[in-house]
């Protein structure tokens, strides 16, 4: 029961980024300010980390601390890239809005 619930929720959470990516690529075709690569790379790392985090629960229904740690490091990389991208956008927009 737990595994079915988790699998279906994971499937939804992996489907939504695909929809999000479609919007994202459409927006990026129109946008002038380009920090897309940072945001995309950051988001991709976050999703990968998330998948690694859930893998043990999906397959053995238990935690594997080593995999959990690895997933945290992946997420950390993703957040770092994302933070850089967001900060750059802030600096650029601040200039433009002035």
């Amino acid at each position: 029961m737990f595994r079915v619930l988790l699998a279906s929720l994971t499937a939804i959470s992996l489907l939504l980024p695909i929809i999000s990516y479609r919007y994202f690529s459409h927006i990026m075709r129109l946008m002038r300010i380009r920090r897309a690569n940072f945001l995309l790379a950051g988001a991709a790392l976050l999703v990968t980390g998330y998948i690694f985090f859930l893998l043990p629960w999906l397959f053995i229904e238990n935690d594997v601390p080593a995999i959990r740690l690895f997933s945290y490091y992946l997420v950390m990389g993703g957040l770092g890239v994302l933070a850089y991208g967001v900060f750059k956008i802030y600096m650029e927009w601040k200039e433009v809005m002035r």
Partner: protein
Amino acid sequence: MNLITPLAINLFLSVTIFFVAMQIYNVYRRKYMLWFLLALFFLPLLFIYSLLEWVYLSKISIYSIVAYPLIIIAMEISTIMAQKNLLTSLKKGEKVEYSLLLREDIALIRAFEKMANYLIGRISLFIGIKDVEELLEECIEKYPVLAGCYIGMDEKLKTDIMEENLGEMDYEEMEKMCMAFSYFLTKLVDIQAAFVPYTETAEELLREIKKMDEKIVKYFVPFVLFKIVLEPIIREYKGEELKNIRMMVDVEGIYINRKGGIEYHGIYEYDAITREDKFIKFLERLLVSLGGDEGVRKRITEILRKLPENVKEEIYRYEFIKKLPRGILDEEKIVLSSKDKLIQELIERKEKLEEAYSRLAQAKMDKMKSDFVDIIAHELKTPLTAIKTYTELMRKGKLGRITKLQKEKLDRMAINIDRMARLIDDMLQIPSIDARELELRKEIFGAEEMVKNIISDVEEMLNERGQRIDIEMDDGLKIFGDKNLIEKAIKNIVVNAIKYTPEGGKIVIHGLKDGEYSHIIIRDNGKGIPPDEIERVFEPFYSREGGAGLGLAIAKNVVESHGGRIWAESDGRNGSTFHIMLRMRK
């Protein structure tokens, strides 16, 4: 295994991202930003939950793990909502999105699309939408850059497919697109003009342009100038008159079609200033073809004055008004030229003021310098006189008997006191001459007599060093000036020459008549002055071999205060030559 550290770092990073996003929202308050903020708000929550879950894992059921996908799903939904909102905002072409986010080429396509739809909406009432579709196809055939444009079910021009296939355009491609769209717009305007009075159409189009973003307006400048300013006038002429105008007005790719519409697509090949020039040329020819009608000039002036501010800003950017033919915007030309004159005058006044300030500052500095040297010199001279008196008394034994050694030392002291007194005298002369405060007691005197006086003064020095001075003076050579000062100046140069000439050397003093001037030349065969230092020898306190370095500075001041000239020549090896030019008469 330590999971707390990466978790804490992740928590810190996610909170940072959230706060930076909050700052973005502060400068850019849009609805979709709120959705993004919501999505980013879940990130720190995720890590806080993870921390708690890790600490209390044993007490929480296995189902606690389900919270992760749930939080992630909430985040993703918020992100999708934010993106959807942003996309709608971009599609609507709201002003802030235009200026801040939208690519310029996309914004330009949207602006053309809007204008075209405005015209299509009106002309589809008179002709079927099929004709508009055919016209669009014809335009695409002529300008393939328009491929992807189509008339939608709602009878409106659609550019979404074109946008999707569009790579980022360079300036040249943008110009091509402008050419293509302006061709399409011209055709639509022609159709509408057949049913609606053109002045009405022009006013309505201008209202549309008024709403445009300032970055896009620049691409519509030719449209405004030709289709809105000039075309209403041309369209009033029909038949033979129009034919005559058409024949006379044709400027390299800009011409009038049979219906009286101006076709100007080639103009996008040129830069903004050349475009302006072409328009002026076209206008001049048009005015000639209309027989220099003053009424036409007045009407053009009125139309130009009525243009919205965003268009005016773009059009008047260069020298547009000044280039316009006589009778058009004359008042503005006067205002502009008086503005230019005013600016020029202000610049000149500012320069004069700055010069006066710098002169004042220099004068103040000179005065301060003079005062300073004056005070120092006087303060030194008073005690020195007392020292000298007592030294003399001691030397002569009037203050008691002294030994031989003491006498020797006192002699040396006396020599040094004399040297110091001379130095102070020199220093005292500089400020008075610098400040031009000295009253020169000018008279005419013989140069030869003065030179002989100098030689007798320095005779002792010459004998000590085994040197000699030769004089070669023109007969009756006179100098007009303060005899004492000039003598001192020349003596300084001679003393200098003696110092730098080796023992047994020779110094020559020439005196020549040179027009109204006496030219005194002092030449030595010493080691000379290096060429790069020749300009500096007259600077106060400049010295090559010890000494105060005031002699030549004083000489320069004296000569210049008499309106004369002094300079030095040397190749840096075979001695040096000093020249002095002084007036012979008043």
